[in-house]
């Protein structure tokens, strides 16, 4: 199974590199979709079907919106060269951050272990508490739903607020009424 993960990770990285480097906007958008599809497959093989369903639907919708919104009206290719200095700066910054990050990777728990798995004799950890008492306390058979809508529902409320605010901003900036007044 780990070989499959490495193949999928390589696929995502190659798709992301092509999406950044290509000159054609349409192939760039398609490569973004391919990267999201690889992410969805990884979630599926890690036995997280909730996240996989959400990822694949959002990816398809984002692909449609990006193609419809950008391709049909703008120039469909990127022209001109990149600035040499900004490329050097970004590569150096990413390398330094990666070298710092390798120290952090050593402190991670083992692959597949929950992050808060340090258990004392008197207290249960949070993840084990959800797994053993989730059905009894919330009544939801899907343990993911009981976590995101009951134990950690305050976080979901924050997400909903972020989505609401961003849609509000997009609708206000792109609305129709103001353009009529400007035109006439």
């Amino acid at each position, binding site marked *: 199974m780990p070989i499959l993960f490495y193949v999928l990770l390589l696929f995502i990285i190659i798709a992301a590199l092509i999406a950044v480097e290509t000159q054609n906007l349409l192939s760039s958008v398609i490569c973004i979709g391919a990267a999201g599809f690889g992410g969805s497959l990884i979630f599926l093989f890690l036995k997280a079907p909730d996240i996989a369903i959400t990822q694949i639907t959002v990816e398809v919708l984002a692909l449609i*919106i990006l193609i419809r919104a950008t391709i049909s009206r703008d120039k469909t290719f990127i022209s001109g060269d990149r600035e040499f200095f900004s490329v050097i700066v970004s590569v150096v910054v990413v390398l330094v951050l990666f070298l710092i990050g390798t120290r952090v990777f050593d402190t991670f728990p083992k692959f597949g272990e929950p992050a808060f798995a340090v258990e004392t004799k008197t207290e249960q950890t949070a993840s084990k508490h959800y797994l053993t008492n989730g059905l009894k306390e919330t*009544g939801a058979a899907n343990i993911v739903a009981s976590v995101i809508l009951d134990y950690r529902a305050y976080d979901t*409320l924050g997400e909903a*607020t972020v989505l609401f605010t961003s849609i509000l901003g997009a609708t206000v900036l792109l609305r129709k009424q103001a353009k*009529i007044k400007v035109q006439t």
Partner: protein
Amino acid sequence: MNGMTIIVKNISSWIKILIFLFGIYITLFGHLTPGGGFAGGVILASSYILLTLAFGKRVTDENLPLWLASRLDCIGALLFLAISLVGFLFGASFFFYNFIQQKYLAQHASDFHLVSAGTIPLSNFAIALKVGASLFMVFLVLSTFRPGEPAQQE
């Protein structure tokens, strides 16, 4: 923005109801099977996006215009906020007290049934309404309003 050819129109008129039903299923059974409000809302929005792409903007203006979508968005957000606050009436001291489960459903052993888990299906419904309406609004705003072009006389 005009529609597509007659083949696309026929096939999408058969398929749209299946996509809509699948979105409702994903939303309603979110507390029993994988899925939930967010994925269900995205599928509901994509059925309307299919209609808009296949039949053109006029069908959308009749079925789900922008003002209705924005009101559905606000109703979903307010419903989710109301679910978080109603628990205070039942003696909770924190947000999102699962009052239906704790007060009524816990005695009846209703686990694994459709009517179970208290406020979780209601929250799923509110989130599906909110996400579906807002993503459809993103599509409408980005794809049908042309900047620089004078608005059509209506």
